[in-house]
């Protein structure tokens, strides 16, 4: 159990760091936004493992869900504006 937990944590950590690098270095903006959302999402899984379901829910709903939408909205607005 504990070993599984630990392995899962390590995996999550590695995945988050990887996603974080994609978010700051990736070429395309949508992918960067999605990668940042992924970091958030993985963080919320980690929160569950850390016995914090409230935080996990909030991070998933707000940190990864809403925030990602906000980014895409703005991105959409700017794209729309570019052709003006």
């Amino acid at each position, binding site marked *: 159990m504990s070993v599984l937990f630990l392995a899962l944590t390590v995996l999550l950590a590695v995945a988050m760091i990887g996603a974080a690098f994609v978010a700051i270095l990736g070429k395309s903006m949508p992918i960067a936004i999605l990668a940042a959302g992924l970091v958030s999402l993985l963080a919320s899984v980690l929160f569950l493992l850390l016995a914090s*379901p*409230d935080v*996990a*829910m*909030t991070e998933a*709903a*707000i940190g990864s*869900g*809403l925030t990602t*939408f*906000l980014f895409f*909205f*703005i991105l*959409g*607005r700017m794209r*729309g504006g570019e052709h*003006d």
Partner: protein
Amino acid sequence: MIRKFAALLILAGIAALFMELLFTYQPDPELNTTARYYADRTAADIGAANIVTAIVVTYRGLDTLGEVTVLFLAAAIVGLVLAQGRRKTAKERAVTPAGELLATGSLFLAPLIMLLGVYVFVNGHLTPGGGFQGGAIIASGMLLMLLADPLKHFSHRLIAMVEALSGMIYVAIGLLGIALAGGFLDSHILPNGELGALFSAGAIPLIYALIGLKVGAEFSAILADLSGTEEL
């Protein structure tokens, strides 16, 4: 290049600082005074099963009020920013109509999602979740409606009303706490009830419902503003 190098160098210093924190950190073997008090007393004093909720709504209620205000502020300012020099041509902007599936689907789904949100915040004192999560879910329902029809006449007025009223009632409940119970935002203005029941934990469900409505309204306002479907 110089900037990157400087950033790396300075961040290395910060990393050293963090490393010191990390390596000196030792988890507490026992709950500390504050946490212990909450663990021992929450059930009896507040009557909420979810201790985090008890802390968020009652013990640290002032923080939460501030937090709600942060969102209120963010919504207000986003509105202000985007209202500045708003271009009249937005209506002429080509808007790709949403697919039929999304349009009807959202009509059907949105109320359900909102209901889920309500469920999350009224059960905040019992299970994980609460006003903020519920509010976010409500807002995502709104989001769906937005996506289905971007130029939908989105009632800012209604959102503003919901937000204002729930905020004022929240503050009023806080002040009632001074008058009827032990202090500002004391949840004992209503009876504690039975631990684990829906109507328990004093005013917590009420407050969390107000927070849920308010947060939902605020997020919706932000989303609506940013998506560019505001009234023109």
